């Protein structure tokens, strides 16, 4: 075998392996997407891949599942709830973390090291350590099963990572920026507003995507603090309860899942650059 044929062969193998992996990765999602548009009896009788044979047979595709799921199975309400939960639960912790990271990054005070080490330690504390005491207090204050309760909970839980990542970015700003202002109580806020904040836009964008996806996709925290109450349940909780009651109605489950992933996919594909940058800033690179 000449060197050239062996090179062509190994290139061919490389492409085959890569494309095979990509196809395997995509198949489960494609199956769900197709199934969500099929009538119930078709779904029960044959696999979703049989649609691929007669793609343009529109009689075999329907929007009915989406209709049922949105209006009768409470997914519409849950979808809205997810937004009501996620948006404040993204904005509040980020704002608070920005203030804290600014103080940690540029101010000198007694206890600086201690506060920072506490935040690093809190990065790994399992949320399970906090549920029972917090839920008891929430019950007393009437915050359990309410939106403000879960906004606060997600804010608290999101803070360590947000402060840590913002600190890394803010403390790396060139120090000349801070020389100009002679800094007392008032002008420190001026510096924050007009220097730190504008320069932090990229990292804030990355973090906002993290926090949005984390809250949007969260099941556990919502289960604990919102319980099963349908008026406030987010879409993840709603879907997990549908799995219990409509476990074999795949056309409905798949439609519900697809609705739940549309917002995160839109955010993901439109802001992938920030997302990736955030991962790299937060994890391995310096």
């Amino acid at each position, binding site marked *: 075998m000449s060197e050239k044929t062996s090179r062509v062969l190994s290139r061919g193998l490389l492409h085959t*392996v890569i494309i095979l992996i990509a196809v395997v990765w995509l198949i489960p999602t494609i199956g769900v997407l197709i199934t969500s548009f099929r009538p119930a009896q078709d779904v029960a009788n044959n696999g979703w891949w049989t649609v691929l044979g007669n793609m343009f047979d529109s009689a075999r595709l329907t929007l009915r599942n989406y209709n049922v799921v949105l209006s009768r199975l409470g997914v519409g309400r849950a979808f809205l709830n997810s937004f009501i939960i996620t948006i404040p639960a993204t904005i509040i912790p980020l704002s608070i973390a920005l*203030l804290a990271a600014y103080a940690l990054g*540029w101010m000198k005070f007694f206890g600086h090291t201690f506060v920072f080490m506490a935040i*690093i330690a809190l990065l*790994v504390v399992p949320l399970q350590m906090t549920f029972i005491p917090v839920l008891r207090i929430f019950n007393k204050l009437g915050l359990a099963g309410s939106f403000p309760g879960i906004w606060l909970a997600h804010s608290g839980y999101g803070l360590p990572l947000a402060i840590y990542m913002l600190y*890394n970015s803010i403390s790396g700003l060139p120090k000349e920026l801070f020389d100009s202002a002679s800094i007392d109580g008032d002008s420190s806020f001026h510096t924050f507003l007009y220097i730190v904040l504008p320069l932090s836009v990229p990292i804030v964008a990355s973090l906002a995507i993290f926090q949005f996806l984390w809250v949007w996709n969260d099941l556990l925290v919502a289960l604990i603090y919102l319980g099963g109450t349908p008026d406030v349940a987010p879409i993840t909780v709603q879907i997990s309860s549908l799995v219990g009651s409509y476990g074999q109605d795949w056309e409905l489950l798949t439609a519900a899942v697809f609705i739940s992933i549309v917002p995160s996919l839109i955010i993901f594909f439109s802001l992938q650059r920030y997302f990736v940058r955030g991962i790299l800033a937060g994890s391995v690179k310096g």
Partner: protein
Amino acid sequence: MWPPEVATNPFPVHRKIKMYTKKSTPWLYLAPALVLLGFFLIYPSFHTLYLSFFDKGSNVFVGAGNYIYAFTNRVMLTAFRNNALWVVVFSAITVFLGLVLAVLLDRVRYEVIIKSIIFMPMAISFVGASVIWKFVYAFRPAGAPQIGILNALLQTFHLPPVAWLIERPWVNNLCLILVGIWVWTGFCLVVLSASYKSIPRQFLEAARVDGANEWKIFWRIIFPLLVPTITVLTTTMAVFVLKVFDIIYVMTNGNFGTEVIANRMYKEMFQFGNFGRSSAIAVVLLVLVLPMMLLNLRRFKREEK
């Protein structure tokens, strides 16, 4: 689901802090954060530790009773075994696949598209991923038309269908772990790919000119340079997956020998209302991630100097 414990990296060098403010000013900026951290993380952690020594209703002191339960109960032991399986298989395969893909994809022009495809499940919730895969694993008795793609594949080869989520102990646990791998490999790929691309190309070119084959180049040059990234990534994955909950809650609820620690903690809390045991299980989880916490703190202190 994001790992809030994302492995901490080399901290930025501490520069001389430049701003001079009134003594109280920094605390004004820190106050909202400290209040929330105190209320949602610090105080409850200590309280949970305290509750773990009391009975079901937190009234009677039971000493180590709940911990004895946690380490001897049959279901808890299954949960420990499964968590160990999750940690080893999930971390090893996500990092390994991420590494292989990072190196392979660097050689093709459509790299970006494939990366997006592998990375896409990261946007999907574990709940969504669980439903997606439950459908892949759908099982009907032999003879009936199979609507799950895996059993349909078996059918075309005239093999009997497999109840993927019921067949214990290895098949169902590995099938659950596969869902996690599907979601998180993209994360490892992105991190490792960035690290791989930061290796100066001249190193590799020089080795090629000297006649080293690709296999040798990988093991002698690329791999050693990636070891720090691989180590951090593997520990991050391991610590993250110790707390796995959603996939099990949605797909099997811990039945058929698939229980895990976090799901057990949830059941003890809500299903059985046993706050003592539930707290003890939470403390066990904390102890399991403590090494990671100490590692991070040590690294921070080192950078501080």
